[in-house]
């Protein structure tokens, strides 16, 4: 990569820093560059301190970076908090001189965003001014930015477009006397894929999985997924229902799935905790449901708008007693899309609940997805109708067989009467206390694991056969792979392993790979190396050490690289 710079735009909640970042990201993307936009915001509506980090590169980037080259400090606090991260030669744009800390510093440049915006017609154009100045500094041709503004405002009003272009021009002009150290000559190539956040990708995956009903209770960082579903619902046969609480949400989903539509809910840890009993209900009634758990740091309310990966062991073991379930953790929007669609299919096919673990970082960050998102041509029906039955009136929902998967009919769709029960039940769906039937039913459910395991995809291997292996799951993929490459560049024989399909655990596949590694390290956003523990439990192999981060901010490759180097010393 010859270009790899990062821009931080910070200020108070409500100042529109997202707009600045997004305008810039889109401009870069149109020029064929790679970007990632990472959101860092507090759990409040106005005030406080938020920022976004925009990383721009000519090669793929999937994680934030520690290096900071350019900063837009919409308030003094931003400058104070992030000043020390600014690279030698880096620059901070500040709106005014408060006569104190800011301008003293040689790395500062005053741009009167508000004044220029006002000149262009409206104070709220400050964001466009700021984006303009930044783009000018890094050398972005003006017409690219202008085009982005056109796409944004052509639907709106002629006047607003004109004002925005004017503001952009003022922004560009403001940069004129300054040469930015990391500015580069822009070759325009065709845009790489499209810009998309993880939440959107999950929602698209749900539609590709033929999701028709979703019930939810608002909770960060899951609400974005629901918002996307709502935004798209007009085009598809999908109903989205806001429930009174998470208990209702998961049970509505179970009711809808029972009645015959694929259904999901999305929540975060606290909400998932409340759904734990429902998870067991889906399991014992063998009703297919999908639950997305968008992780954030806890316990309890914790840090509502921050990121974490600390619910892995919880979701694998959640709810009393034991039953088969799928657990997936996509690492990119494309994986989020495919995994969600697969989760719907597999859940339906095996009549088991599926849990998808995403997190605030994946959900709220904007990535370049180069892969095309494709919906399956057809959705295979995994239910039966009267026609499939010799005598529908004798239908038994929980007929025993070797696969553990009993033919599933739907209620009120024919003569077959469908009877399901959260007590342990017999084949007909009636309560039973019979010891042998209990064992047969629990065994039947458990038997599904065999075929479920065949659906589990092996981990992604990066540089197979390396001595040292870094292992990630979920959203840590980007940082892990970048770290592997950095370490290799530093002469360390390092490879990577990325896990998406986590449960049923791919014991054999993992065992085979780990057998060959001299040592392996897990890279996780939790405190106890949960995947590391799981690997030991399932394969017997013990991680040499773990690179862990728990402060709610996404990991950067540099942090991993440094940690590994220290550990290897």
């Amino acid at each position, binding site marked *: 990569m010859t270009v790899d710079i990062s821009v931080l735009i910070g200020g108070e909640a409500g100042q529109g820093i997202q707009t600045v970042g997004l305008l810039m990201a889109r401009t870069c993307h149109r020029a064929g560059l790679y970007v990632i936009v990472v959101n860092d915001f507090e759990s409040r509506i106005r005030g406080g301190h938020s920022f976004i980090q925009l990383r721009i590169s000519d090669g793929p980037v999937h994680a934030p970076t520690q290096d900071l080259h350019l900063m837009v400090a919409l308030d003094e606090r931003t400058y104070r908090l992030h000043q020390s991260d600014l690279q030698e030669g880096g620059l901070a744009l500040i709106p005014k001189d408060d006569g104190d800390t800011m301008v003293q510093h040689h790395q500062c440049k005053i741009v009167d965003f508000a004044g220029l915006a006002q000149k262009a017609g409206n104070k709220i154009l400050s964001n466009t001014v700021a984006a303009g100045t930044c783009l000018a500094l890094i050398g972005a041709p003006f017409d690219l930015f202008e085009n982005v503004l056109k796409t944004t405002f052509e639907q709106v009003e002629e006047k607003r477009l004109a004002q925005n272009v004017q503001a952009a021009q003022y922004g560009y002009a403001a940069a004129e006397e300054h040469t930015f150290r990391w500015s580069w000559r822009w070759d325009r190539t065709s845009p790489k894929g499209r810009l998309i956040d993880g939440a959107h990708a999950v929602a698209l995956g749900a539609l590709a999985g033929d999701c028709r009903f979703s019930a939810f209770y608002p909770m960060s960082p899951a609400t974005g997924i629901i918002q996307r579903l709502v935004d798209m619902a007009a085009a598809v046969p999908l109903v989205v229902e806001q429930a009174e609480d998470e208990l209702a949400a998961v049970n509505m989903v179970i*009711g809808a799935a029972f009645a015959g539509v694929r259904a999901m809910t999305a929540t975060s840890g606290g909400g998932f905790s409340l759904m734990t009993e*429902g998870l067991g209900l889906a399991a014992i*009634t063998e009703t297919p449901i999908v639950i997305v758990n968008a992780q954030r740091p806890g316990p309890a309310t914790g840090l509502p708008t921050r990121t974490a990966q600390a619910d892995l062991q919880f979701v694998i073991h959640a709810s009393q007693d034991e039953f088969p379930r799928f657990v997936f953790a996509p690492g990119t929007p494309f994986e989020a899309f495919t995994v969600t669609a697969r989760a719907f299919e597999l859940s339906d096919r095996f009549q088991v609940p599926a849990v998808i673990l995403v997190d605030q970082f994946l959900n709220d960050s904007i990535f370049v997805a180069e892969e095309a998102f494709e919906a399956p041509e057809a959705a295979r029906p995994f239910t039966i109708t009267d026609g499939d039955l010799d005598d529908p009136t004798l239908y038994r929902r929980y007929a025993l067989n070797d696969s553990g998967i009993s033919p599933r009919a739907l209620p*009120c769709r024919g003569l077959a009467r469908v009877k399901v029960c*959260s007590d342990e039940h017999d084949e007909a769906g009636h309560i039973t206390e019979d010891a042998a039937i209990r064992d047969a039913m629990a065994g039947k459910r458990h038997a599904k694991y065999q075929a479920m395991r065949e659906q589990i995809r092996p981990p992604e291997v990066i540089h197979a056969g390396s001595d040292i292996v870094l292992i990630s799951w979920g959203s840590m993929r980007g940082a892990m792979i970048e770290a592997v490459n950095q370490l290799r560049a530093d002469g360390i024989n390092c490879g990577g392993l990325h896990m998406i399909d986590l449960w049923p655990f791919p014991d054999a596949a993992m065992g085979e790979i780990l057998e060959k590694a001299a040592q392996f390290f897990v890279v996780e956003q939790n405190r106890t190396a949960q995947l590391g523990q799981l690997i030991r439990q399932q394969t017997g192999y013990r991680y040499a050490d773990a690179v862990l981060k728990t402060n709610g901010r996404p990991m950067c490759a540099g942090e991993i690289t440094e940690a590994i180097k220290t550990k290897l010393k």
Partner: protein
Amino acid sequence: MVSINDYHSDYPNHWCPGCGNFGILEAMKAALAALELPPEKILIVSGIGQAAKTPHFLECNYFHSLHGRALPIATGAKIANHHMTVLVNTGDGDCYGEGGNHFMHAIRRNIDVTVLAHNNRVYGLTKGQASPTSMEGMQTKIQPGGVIMGAFNPLAVALSLGAGFVARGFSSDGDQLRDLIQAGIRHRGFALIDIMQPCVSFNQVNTHKWYKDRIAPIEENHDETDRISAVRLSLGTDDRIPTGIYYRRESPSYTDRIDKLKDKPLTDHRYRPELLKALLTDGYP
């Protein structure tokens, strides 16, 4: 012609001899038969408790779910396929205790289900603890000093939440109960029938006789479209317990109000990938 016998279930009954639940079961069958609803056309959702075992004892589609969660299950099922006739069998603990929040919000949703709340004023299945509707002062093994909370008044609460069909029945008055259940099913929207039911094993206060001495059909001149009168009736001023329809007023049910369901139930759509084409290439423009 649907007959009561069509509802016969071979599954052995679990209730205590003399339990009021039997009367409710028979009234249900009679109402369903009278409405010409064959077993395969109805879905009964229940929670957990003695009342919630009801669907095992008559032929139907059923979802015998979790304690307290019958209403969300019923809501999800109804939204997925609003052509189904959905009934809910629930207990006073199930519906007003563990499931209290769903009770309130299902009413607000005006989801088209008929709720039969078997109100025995006690937790039957767990052996006799006080329930939300237990009377103040009632002594139980767990409440030896007597209940010190005010009894939950399901009708008053339902009325305050704007429920469109609010009625009270008695398990031993089969004919009236049958009629109430019929009316409840016919009502488009949320219908609550709170059914007073003796529990011979655990409630020695509200016995069959206790009820017999108090219940009286609502007076003829009661205006069932007047909410304030209904509230007044539900709050009671003397010892009498009026049975019948307290309040009835139809308004569009929840599924009636979801545009997407005008055409056909969600279950009746085919998966059509072509609808997704444009969406799948979307992102930040």
